[in-house]
């Protein structure tokens, strides 16, 4: 048994164990921390599966932001409430059905997974975008990404409909945390920009950069900084909508000489993609920080949309 197989096996087992614990521990706080660890381990698994772009995004958004949202919501709901657990009878039946489903899925998936890999279909030429994932996201399947930015706006609207989101006020934070934040946040902003820039040719891209930027914003909030540039309902709405608006605008403008929607002219491809990605990075990061702020417990007299 090779070392790689051993490593992969251990990773898989740990993933399953962490997920099991996250769903079974009575204390919801512990469950959240297990979920965070699960997400970070999943990021390592993405590396094992030759998906470094996914690893960046998973670590920051999938594990980091999701766990931050969850734990902040939990904190706002009072003392760590325990989960009483399901009734044993239905749970056992559900467990049996779940095993059955897993067996069925494995039977269907196994031939596909163990078959020799198909010949690589030739993707259309991607010009300067030598990172294939970026090329697919922003060029070949750009429409899907456009809709994805709209999904984020919708989520924000949904959260707003459910109640106003608190203003990002300055708060007292432990001085060690504040000092750490002062050191980390500028570095993270620069790294986010570097990841965004690198995404065209190498690993990285808009979503990874946005994730790092969002993490910087959330850290700043945890350190008590008010982030006044994110105040005001109109400004937040404008930031959230800017990615979709720009993407849509670019898609429509390239139609003027008679091209199809979102078909970038070859000499402009690099510039347009970078423009869309840059705006998407800032917009997505802003949305994530506002969504994080929305999970904080409300304090009276400090609310704005």
């Amino acid at each position: 048994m090779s070392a790689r197989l051993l490593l992969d096996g251990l990773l898989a087992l740990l993933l399953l164990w962490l997920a099991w614990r996250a769903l079974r521990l009575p204390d919801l706080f512990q469950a959240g921390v297990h979920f965070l660890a699960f997400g970070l381990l999943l990021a390592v698994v993405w590396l094992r599966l030759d998906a470094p772009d996914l690893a960046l995004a998973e670590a920051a958004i999938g594990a980091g932001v999701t766990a931050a949202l969850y734990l902040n919501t939990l904190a706002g709901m009072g003392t760590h409430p325990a989960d009483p657990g399901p009734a044993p009878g239905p749970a056992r039946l559900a467990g049996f059905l779940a095993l059955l489903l897993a067996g069925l899925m494995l039977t269907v998936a196994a031939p596909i997974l163990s078959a020799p890999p198909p010949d690589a279909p030739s993707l259309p030429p991607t010009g300067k975008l030598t990172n294939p994932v970026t090329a697919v996201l922003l060029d070949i399947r750009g429409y899907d990404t456009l809709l994805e930015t709209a999904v984020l706006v919708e989520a924000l609207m949904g959260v707003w409909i459910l109640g106003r989101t608190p203003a990002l006020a300055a708060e007292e934070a432990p001085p060690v945390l504040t000092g750490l934040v002062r050191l980390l946040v500028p570095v993270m902003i620069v790294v986010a920009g570097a990841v965004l820039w690198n995404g065209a040719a190498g690993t990285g891209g808009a979503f990874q950069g946005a994730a790092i930027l969002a993490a910087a914003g959330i850290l700043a909030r945890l350190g008590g900084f008010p982030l006044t540039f994110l105040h005001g309902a109109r400004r937040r709405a404008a930031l959230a909508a800017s990615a979709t608006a720009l993407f849509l605008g670019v898609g429509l403008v390239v139609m003027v000489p008679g091209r199809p929607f979102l078909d970038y002219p070859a000499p402009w491809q690099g510039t347009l993609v970078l423009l869309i990605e840059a705006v998407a990075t800032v917009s997505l990061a802003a949305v994530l920080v506002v969504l994080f702020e929305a999970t904080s417990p409300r304090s009276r007299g400090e609310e704005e949309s």
Partner: protein
Amino acid sequence: MTPGILFGGTGIALFVLGLHGLLVRPRFLRKVLGLNVAGSGVFLLLVAMAQRGEGPPDPVPHAMVLTGIVVAVSATALALALIRRIHAAERGHREEER
């Protein structure tokens, strides 16, 4: 056993685990975790299927999963907002009954 089969199987197991947790556990916050675990399982299966042996993996499933991660966090944020609203409404009810 290639990494593809191993992690594909793990993805299926995670999906079923998350689905079971989503359906069976009574607390809403736990259901959110179950939904996320199930989503991660699906992503794992997709990326495992994107493996191409020695060559570079198929980028289209990778792009789909990247989109999926962002959409999952959006859905989680909305779900948590709904949970907060329910919690606030229940608390208001309880205080009225006193």
